């Protein structure tokens, strides 16, 4: 079957599933077997993408377009672009999505809005797939916003919960901020190239390489702006605060959207934009990625909510990927995306299974409860506003109760902590470290050395907190008896997806997560050789240009050379590269041992008391516990701003950022509304009314002249005559 047909099937199946639901409900009827419809649709899509992956040949990308808007001077075409990346992404998305569908059948069972959930899942899958296959920025942006919408709808799925309602709005608005940046970037590109198409001979990528040297800065700015979108969606610092809150949504949603696919879309975007990334913008991306990786990891250490831990770990892993892309190692980034998608989804589903079990037990022993999950509020005992069913401090020893969940999650954990050779996570993470170090060594770039250390450190912490999670959840003695007693393993429909995902964490069985295969399958596109003719790798010209870009000539030379043998024979037979490799392999052993060992000392053997350490390093602990005061910073900054300036737009900022950050700020709204309303009434409307007033009062005056005394009238005649004579005399 041709690519087009397969694509259309892949896209249409989920869309159809959603339409069925929406049409039925518009007619006021319920869609009883929505779960089956959606799941079936997703499976079909999966089969098709598998077919694509197997049959289609990524060497010669398939690219088809048709005009979307009939404009002459500018080009608005829609189309799809199929290359190895697309194939991989399609596969990843469809696999995870199908599995999540299946899992949800069990997890969401008995929810009052059961069908709606699946409908939304289908809509999401459609949007995500659309985003992946589309060949131009506009299409990507469309899919981009649509997945945002679905994430909004699904986070707020249990909208009766205030926390959920707030979280979904926060998510939408925060990402929207990034999207606006992305849109501005798009406008810049559009203004320059009169098109938003990426591929093809008049696509942006083709045009970029014809740019003059003077455009380098411009291009960097555009690249960073586009990347803003990714910052929002992939929850990079400083727009990361929405993702942890997004955990208010049902756990399968967290697994699908906020771990495997949507948040990874940011990375995908960065990767797609790879040919636009100048050294400068790359560096920005890399730094943001690195910082995010570290910050998120450190925050994760001190979380107790099992989903929050995973959320922060997601953020930090995404940071990794960004770092990779920014460091110019396209393949490693995408590879980590792939592996991460599977094991993170697995982790979330696993945690979901635990939470499910706990809720079940909770229901078993506290009967006063109707609407399924939507009652995190009434906890039987004190907890920092954490849903008790997600609080790891209530868990422990679960490995006996739910062995399957335990084993699968353990595998995922080993994978994410990068335990050597056996697990996919190791390979991808290792690849990233190697790439960064390699850049650092080959370009003698301090930046990249710093980044490398950050990444390594983050890796240690990752291992630490992941095992902390495992130990606290599955090992030791149960901390909460009566809940523990009611807990039992989840049904097949939930465990099977876990098993499948677990299998997908072993490179041996799966080509898709096999580094060797992946590196051959996915090819790094060229980055802009701004100013120089296409495909020219003359190191001199490169040097000059990158010197203009404010980088060392060596960097430039190496880079050119690098590109050269990229095209010759991949990155392997490159001395520096091998050197980096040889450093990283042992290092990752150290990392893993360090991380796991520490965490074991804390939480397994209990040799060291976490509390004690926390007490010792109270300030740091607080820093972590309070998530680096990001939310507080936003609010605080704004409050300070208000106090500082009572100016209208100051207040407006207050209102909006507050709305973005935590969407509460009711008092502020009051204040703001009064001000704006006041301005509108006083200044704008007031002016008009004022004129009206004047007119009326003048009317009144003139009226008063009409005294009713005839002789005054006569006087006025006289006056009028004299006046007229005087005036027109002088004229």
């Amino acid at each position, binding site marked *: 079957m041709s690519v087009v047909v397969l694509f259309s099937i892949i896209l249409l199946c989920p869309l159809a599933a959603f339409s069925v639901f929406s049409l039925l409900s518009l007619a006021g009827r319920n869609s009883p077997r929505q779960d089956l419809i959606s799941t079936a649709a997703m499976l079909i899509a999966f089969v098709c993408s598998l077919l694509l992956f197997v049959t289609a040949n990524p060497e010669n990308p398939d690219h088809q377009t048709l005009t979307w808007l009939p404009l002459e001077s500018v080009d608005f075409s829609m189309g799809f672009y199929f290359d190895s990346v697309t194939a991989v992404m399609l596969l990843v998305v469809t696999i995870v999505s199908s599995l999540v569908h299946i899992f949800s059948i069990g997890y969401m069972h008995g929810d009052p809005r059961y069908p709606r959930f699946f409908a939304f899942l289908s809509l999401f899958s459609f949007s995500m797939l659309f985003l992946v296959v589309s060949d131009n920025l506009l299409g990507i942006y469309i899919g981009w916003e649509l997945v945002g919408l679905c994430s909004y709808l699904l986070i707020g799925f249990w909208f009766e919960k205030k926390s959920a309602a707030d979280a979904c709005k926060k998510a939408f608005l925060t990402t929207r901020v990034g999207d606006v940046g992305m849109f501005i970037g798009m406008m810049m590109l559009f203004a320059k190239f009169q098109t938003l198409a990426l591929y093809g001979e008049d696509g942006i990528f083709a045009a970029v390489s014809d740019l003059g040297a003077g455009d380098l800065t411009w291009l960097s700015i555009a690249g960073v702006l586009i990347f803003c979108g990714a910052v929002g969606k992939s929850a990079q610092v400083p727009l990361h605060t929405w993702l942890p809150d997004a955990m208010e949504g049902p756990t399968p949603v967290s697994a699908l959207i906020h771990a495997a696919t949507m948040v990874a879309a940011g990375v995908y975007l960065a990767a797609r934009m790879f040919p636009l990334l100048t050294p400068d913008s790359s560096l920005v991306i890399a730094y943001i990625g690195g910082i995010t990786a570290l910050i998120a990891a450190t925050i994760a250490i001190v979380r107790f909510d099992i989903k929050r831990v995973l959320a922060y770990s997601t953020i930090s892993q995404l940071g990794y990927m960004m770092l990779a892309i920014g460091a110019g190692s396209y393949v490693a980034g995408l590879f980590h995306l792939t592996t991460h998608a599977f094991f993170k989804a697995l982790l979330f589903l696993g945690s979901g299974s635990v939470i499910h079990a706990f809720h079940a037990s909770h229901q078993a022993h506290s009967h006063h409860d109707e609407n399924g999950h939507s009652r995190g509020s009434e906890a039987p005992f004190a907890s920092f506003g954490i849903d008790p069913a997600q609080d790891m401090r209530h868990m422990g020893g679960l490995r006996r109760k739910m062995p399957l969940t335990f084993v699968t999650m353990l595998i995922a954990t080993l994978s994410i902590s990068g335990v050597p050779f056996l697990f996919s996570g190791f390979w991808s993470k290792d690849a990233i470290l190697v790439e960064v170090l390699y850049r650092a060594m080959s370009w003698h770039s301090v930046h990249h050395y710093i980044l490398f250390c950050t990444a390594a450190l983050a890796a240690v912490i990752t291992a630490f907190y992941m095992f902390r999670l495992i130990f606290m959840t599955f090992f030791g003695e149960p901390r909460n008896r009566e809940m523990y007693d009611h807990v039992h393993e989840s049904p097949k429909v939930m465990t099977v997806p876990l098993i499948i995902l677990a299998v997908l964490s072993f490179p041996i069985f799966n080509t898709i997560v096999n580094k060797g295969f992946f590196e051959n399958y996915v090819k790094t596109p060229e980055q802009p050789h701004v100013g120089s003719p296409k495909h020219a790798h003359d190191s001199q010209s490169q040097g000059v240009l990158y010197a203009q870009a404010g980088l060392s000539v060596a960097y430039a030379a190496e880079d050119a050379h690098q590109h050269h043998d990229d095209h010759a024979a991949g990155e392997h037979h490159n001395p520096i590269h091998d050197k980096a490799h040889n450093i990283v392999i042992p290092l990752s052993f150290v990392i893993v041992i360090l991380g796991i060992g520490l965490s074991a000392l804390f939480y397994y053997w209990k040799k060291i008391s976490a509390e004690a350490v926390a007490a010792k390093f109270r300030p740091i602990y607080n820093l972590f516990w309070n998530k680096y005061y990001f939310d507080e910073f936003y609010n605080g900054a704004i409050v300070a701003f208000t106090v500082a300036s009572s100016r209208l737009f100051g207040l407006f900022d207050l209102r909006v950022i507050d709305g973005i950050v935590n969407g509460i700020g009711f008092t502020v709204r009051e204040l703001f509304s009064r001000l704006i309303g006041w301005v509108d009434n006083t200044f704008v409307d007031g002016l008009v009314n004022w004129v009206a007033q004047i007119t009326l009062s003048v009317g009144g005056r003139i009226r008063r002249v009409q*005294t*009713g*005394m*005839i*002789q005054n009238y*006569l006087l006025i005649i006289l006056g009028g005559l004299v006046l007229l004579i005087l005036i027109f005399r002088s004229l």
Partner: protein
Amino acid sequence: MNDLTPYLVISTTLFCLGIFAVLTRRNAISILMGIELILNACNLNFAAFSRFVTPPDDISGQIISIFGIVLAAAEAAVFLAIILAIYREFSTISPDETDTLKG
């Protein structure tokens, strides 16, 4: 005396006196007198002009002044009638006190 000026002076004075009376008198009758003064000033003008300006055989000026006198009489009649009506309604003929219509 064969000069236009004194006539004009007189007539202008009459006119001004008339206007003055009309503006200042607090009694309808005196106002009527003022009006008569104005009209007579005009009549005087016409007569004088026809004597000094227009050719001797053209007496239209004097005719006009006669018309003026007639009209003055008619006006006076109507005026007095209205004054009576006013007196009936307001039991005063002072224009200051007949100011119910205003604004």
